[in-house]
């Protein structure tokens, strides 16, 4: 992939925690203006790759280019400017426990737009909550909400600054079908605006619905990566094994991707 069309690019990235090596010399180029989905068994390093691409954790070696510049090469002001145009939804929601739901959503807005009036902030917060289908729980603390609702708040926090790129770590986990449908519709709409989504999920229905590109991972390695229709037609037994394993874990939701898989069969 041409690096100018890449949103995030991992070059020769090595990352380990303590004595455990997660990746060694990993290369991955995630395209701009597309939705890239990372799939693989639990613990294969999908979330870590997402955080490395987003510059939240730094690898021990190698470089991570985001928007044509390495995270390490940016000074604090440049990093803040990039953060204003990105949103991140964490696997566990990662809401600030000592703040109310309203404060959780409005803090990024206040931080990046100190000139905003109270009314403007309130409008943007309500709009973000409406887009993700969050009920009005403004003055509750995150611990009073279910994990699904916490995910919605995390989503609202990620989109409140109208970002260009969204990093989503298992965004639909814990959501009922109605809320999941709403979030998927939002992601599709977000994509139609020419924006970038990098998404980690185990849910094949999410992959089938929103993925333009698909990366299949195992043991810290990218086994297959490319447009989704090409990846699901892969003849690599390891890729087939992972896809069927993921499908068997979520058989009831797998019709869409089963369709894609069956298209790939000779």
């Amino acid at each position, binding site marked *: 992939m041409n690096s100018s069309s890449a949103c995030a690019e991992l070059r020769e990235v090595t990352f380990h925690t303590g004595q455990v090596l997660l990746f060694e010399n990993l290369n991955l180029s995630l395209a701009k203006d597309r939705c890239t989905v990372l799939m693989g068994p639990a613990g294969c390093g999908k979330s870590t790759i997402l955080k490395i691409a987003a510059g939240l954790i730094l690898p021990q070696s190698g470089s991570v280019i985001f928007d044509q510049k390495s995270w390490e090469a940016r000074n604090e002001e440049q990093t803040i400017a990039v953060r204003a145009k990105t949103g991140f939804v964490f696997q566990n929601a990662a809401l600030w426990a000592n703040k109310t739901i309203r404060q959780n959503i409005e803090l990024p807005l206040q931080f*990046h737009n100190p000139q905003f009036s109270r009314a403007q902030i309130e409008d943007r917060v309500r709009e973000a909550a409406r887009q993700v289908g969050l009920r009005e729980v403004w003055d509750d603390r995150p611990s009073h909400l279910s994990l699904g609702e916490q995910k919605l708040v995390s989503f609202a926090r990620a989109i409140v600054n109208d970002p260009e790129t969204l990093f989503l770590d298992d965004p639909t986990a814990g959501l009922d079908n109605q809320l999941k449908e709403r979030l998927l519709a939002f992601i599709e709409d977000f994509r139609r605006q020419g924006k970038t989504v990098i998404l980690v999920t185990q849910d094949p229905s999410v992959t089938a619905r929103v993925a333009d590109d698909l990366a299949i991972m195992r043991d810290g390695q990218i086994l297959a990566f490319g447009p989704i229709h090409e990846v699901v037609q892969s003849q690599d037994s390891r890729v087939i094994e992972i896809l069927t394993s993921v499908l068997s874990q979520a058989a009831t939701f797998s019709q869409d991707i089963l369709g894609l898989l069956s298209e790939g069969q000779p």
Partner: protein
Amino acid sequence: MSLTSGEEHPNFLARWGSAAFELTANLFYAFGFFWNVLLETFHFRSRSKVGTQVLVMQILFTGVNALFIITLIAVSLGTVIIFYGNQIPTAVSTNLVYTILITVITRELGPLLTAFIVMARSGVAIATELSSMVVTHEIEAYLAVGINPISYLVVPRFLGVTLSMIALNLYFNVSGLAASYLVAQFIHPIPASEYFSQLMAQLTPNAVSLSVVKSLIFGIVISLVSSLNGFRAQQSTTEIPVIVIRAVGQGFGLLIVVNILLTLAFAG
């Protein structure tokens, strides 16, 4: 040399070498952290668009909410000094009791006891809060929205604890010395003018400077030790009590060492 001791020798050296290496690395890390906090502190007004509220809350928790326990300890210390001071026949007549009051309350125990209380309350709270924020990925969430955790979380706590420490030490002094006067009225009544003029005569610029410098440095030590340890959490909630205990141990140890060093420095 026996074979056994010959075998133990390299292990012993390796252990000490490893410990020395780890200690050095930790010291460098701590100094780097301190430097980072200082840099962000200088930029606090310009950069902290949303940190002022955290600062106000920290002063409220560390300073205002600690007034009761500070009053209790200051009053009891003043009472004890006056009570035992009056047991010494010549103490009052030779002004010894005033010297003891200023030495104990202003120069030594006032700042140290205040620091112990602040460490036990705010230091523990900071280490617990920050470490649980690391474990639940809240720190990463701040990074994700562009907020520097040092600027937003540590600097307000650093400023809040340090300013509160100075104010609480001043309050401890006023409470302790005023309480000692009130207790003295029951034991050996003295006119207020005489009592406080004798007291002021002992309250030298050196004693005041030492007290202020101690409270300033104690505040810095408490906030940095508790923040630094809080950020050392990795991924499990079971780490939090271990981190808090370590923070308290390091904090109390450092406070005692710094207290001795400052007392010696101001004695010359």
